[in-house]
């Protein structure tokens, strides 16, 4: 089990503004994400929490402000100053993503879905499949590797998505409503499995949710309202 390094943030957003047309989604957000912590970002629909995740992950470049990424032992990099190709590369090697639904390629088996990020990173297919298989086994999916997404339950599909997000051993996992489409039992099961894996690996997690029960699994939570952080506190252990 890893510890949270509160001395220097792995992600640091300063004065981040972003908008879509006339709508201002983020209004000068400042937030630090520490290495190894699970940060829950809460807020109602349309509050800007997903936009914040996209800015932190380098998917969107802020209109104003900076997002610095500083993996352990390395100098910070201003993500928002990188080109699209460099940001894509960073997302591929250092970040992992889990979304609410529909993130698996429907024609690929569970094993091939998980292998994809490794193949994109240049890993040989046999090795990629072996590593993916081991991870799927750890997630309790050893009997489902040859199944297509359409043949899996919602919970199983989310576990495959988690395996795909973690197979490259990312420094940061961004999870946007990862259990939003599951019933409470399946959601708890998926969340527990995911957090066990990331805590064991020391992976930092930015977890977007509007469900307080999900947020309760995090080390810390912030609440986004109208594009600004309205509150933040450490969750009781």
């Amino acid at each position, binding site marked *: 089990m890893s510890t949270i390094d509160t001395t220097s943030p792995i992600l640091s957003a300063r004065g981040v503004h972003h908008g879509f047309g006339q709508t201002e989604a983020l209004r000068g957000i400042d937030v630090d994400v520490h290495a190894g912590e699970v940060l829950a970002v809460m807020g109602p*629909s349309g509050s800007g929490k*997903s936009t914040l995740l*996209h800015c932190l992950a380098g*998917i*969107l470049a802020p209109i104003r402000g900076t997002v610095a990424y500083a993996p352990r032992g390395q100098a910070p990099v201003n993500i928002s100053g990188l080109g699209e*190709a460099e940001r*894509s*590369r*960073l*997302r*591929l*090697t250092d*970040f*992992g*993503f889990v*979304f*609410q*639904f*529909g*993130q*698996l*390629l*429907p*024609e*690929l*088996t569970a094993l*091939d879905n998980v*292998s*994809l*990020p490794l*193949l*994109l990173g240049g890993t*040989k*297919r046999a090795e990629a499949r072996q590593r993916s298989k081991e991870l799927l086994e750890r997630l309790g999916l050893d009997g489902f590797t040859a199944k*297509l997404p*359409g043949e899996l339950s919602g919970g199983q599909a989310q576990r495959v998505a988690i395996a795909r*997000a973690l197979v490259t051993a990312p420094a940061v996992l961004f999870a*946007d*409503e990862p259990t*939003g489409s599951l019933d409470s039992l399946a959601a708890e099961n998926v969340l527990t499995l995911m957090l066990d894996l990331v805590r064991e690996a020391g992976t930092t997690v930015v977890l977007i949710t509007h469900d307080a029960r999900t947020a309760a699994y995090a080390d810390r939570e912030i609440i986004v309202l109208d594009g600004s952080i309205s509150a933040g506190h450490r969750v009781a252990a």
Partner: protein
Amino acid sequence: MNPAVLKMALLGSRSSWGRMAGIGGGVAIGVCLVLLLWSAANGLAQRDARGAWLREMGQTPVTVPLAADGLTANGRPEPIPLAPDKILLGFPGDIFRDQLINHRDIAALPTTTVKIPGIGAPPAPGQYYASPALQRLIESTPAEELGDRYGQFAGVIDDSALPGPDALVVITGVSEAQLRQGPAAMLVTDFTPNPYGESASLYRTALMVGGIAVLFPVLLLVSIATGLGAAQRRERFATLRLIGASPRLISGMAAVETAIPSLAGALLGVVLAVVFRPAAAQVPVDGTRVFLADFTFGAGFAGTAVVLVVAACALVAARRNARTGIGPLGVTRAMHEKTPTLWRAGPLLAGLAGMAFGAVLAKVDTDGNPWTSPLLIGGFALTAVGVVTVGPWLTRMVSTIGLHRARSAAAVIAASRIRQTPVATFRSVSGLVIAAFMVSVFAGGVSAIETIDAPEARPGLLLPTSVYALVAPGFTPGHVSSVAQNIQEVAGIRDVTVGYARAALGRGEDMDIYIPAEDAPSLGFRETLAEQVAAFDTSFLNSWTTTPVALTAAPVHSLAGLAPVVLVVGTDGTAEALDRARTALNTSGVTATPATSRADLATMGSTRLIQGLSALAYLGVFVAVVIAGISLAASTAAAILDRKRVLGLMRLMGMPVAVLRRVIVREAAVPLLAVLLLSVGLGFLVAWLMIISFGRGRTITWPGPEYYAALSLSLLLALAAVAATFGLVRSNTAITATRSE
């Protein structure tokens, strides 16, 4: 249908207008080409009817006295005398350059009542009537090459007796004695108005095949455009289903949505056909154009074509939409394709079997079996359908192997998708596969012509630079020798050899011809004989002889007492010299047959049969390729839209756009290449079956450069069509496509 729903279906977005314009445009081109092909078929039928009189073979001009048993001859044949209702008709083969001239010699009494088509009364001896095209040719060519063959110009033949504006027809007046001298003059009382119909029938078969070839990609375009429409409006259709619209209503919307632009396109196609009719009528088929007045499609056929094409498009659209599986919660069935099995090869095998049976019938029943054309057309259509039905099976096989061997992310994604959806994936390239099939069929057909190139010079065979004519009986050796000397004076003539025999020769008779041994080299023989007189078999003269004939020592020591039977004229090989030699021989007054060369077989045979179609074929294939290219672009766009969320998420996770592009290219390339080889092979097989059915002994060979150009164009267009969707990959996999809300 509820007008509001219909409006929603039709006027949904700007993309709907683009899609409908695409459908309308495709249908317009398709209908226009079908109407023009039908016009060509009608024109050819009319052409055969106009030229029917040229088929008149008459009756034998002699009677043979019979013995008491009524069966055996008793005495020499007696000529049947000319009468006012009988003329004598001769059929001299006549060639200028590589063009066959329909030449008729006529001998008639001044009081004749027989009407000659196109001119009325027969020409007087020494005069001729010519078609306008031939007269123009005569006037623009030195007389010794052409004009001297016919005498004095008396007038032009009326269009009503000419197959087409380019027809080369000449009717010459000759004396009765001159005609009776030749072997093939016949008595005619009137000229048949009934066309044999062979040319029209063959071309109609080929044109109907062309019609199928044109409509196939149009229907594929409609199907794919409908699929694209469904992909673009998935949420909208799902919402309609959610609020209670039945699948039938959604399919009905697709049918109506397609029927309206199809109707507009079909009507536009009729207008285009009317506009392009004069230009299309200029395309020569079988060596000549048809008259514009004959090149018509008729209001009835146009109306039927419009109704059938619109109905077919609406049905295809309804069926395609029903199969997209859009339910109240979005797409629910799209990924559940039935695994293609080998049964999909059924139509292909049935089509090939039908064509093979048709070819066998054509071989066995040389008089023309009524089942031959239906079997060949039906077999061809089934084979074309078979290429499309077997494609998914083959695609899946290739993708399974590809997935096993895949090393990169793009390869894994593409191979997996193809393996899961071989039918949908193959559909996107099926238009180009069909186009490749069609272009191979036509290239194979056209290649049959190229097998009949100018014959090569070989010792023991008549030199290709020589022409010969048989000498009519009764002329003395001295007279014939003097004629030979006169011919020798003509420009471009190198030598003239007189051949002798024990008796006068008839065409095709098996007998030895004797020549002075010293003349043998000028005929192309390499043997040197010690004897004064050499002999060779008459098969040496036949244009169909392919085995060299040996020169042997003659059983006689002198030519004295033998009859001159043939004049062989060697030329410098130029077209002008050959035509001067023909003219000199035909006007020498001693010949019984027209001047003939080894190359004539190609000119007089069916060589133009398929050659005439090549221009139409490549035009049709070009249109099919363009339509298929549009279909591929639409299909690729639909495939991207289908997966925009998941592809967007892949991009978001760091997959470069270049990888997505490679996925799209592979998804098009694998099925295309997998079936391309098959369709090319099948195309040549079909061409071969057509050729052995209609080509009278011809065979196919490697195609010309235009084939490779057409195939390259298909592949380039495929590449361009896929590349055109690259922008869509970037824009439709942007972050907005991935939002969960």
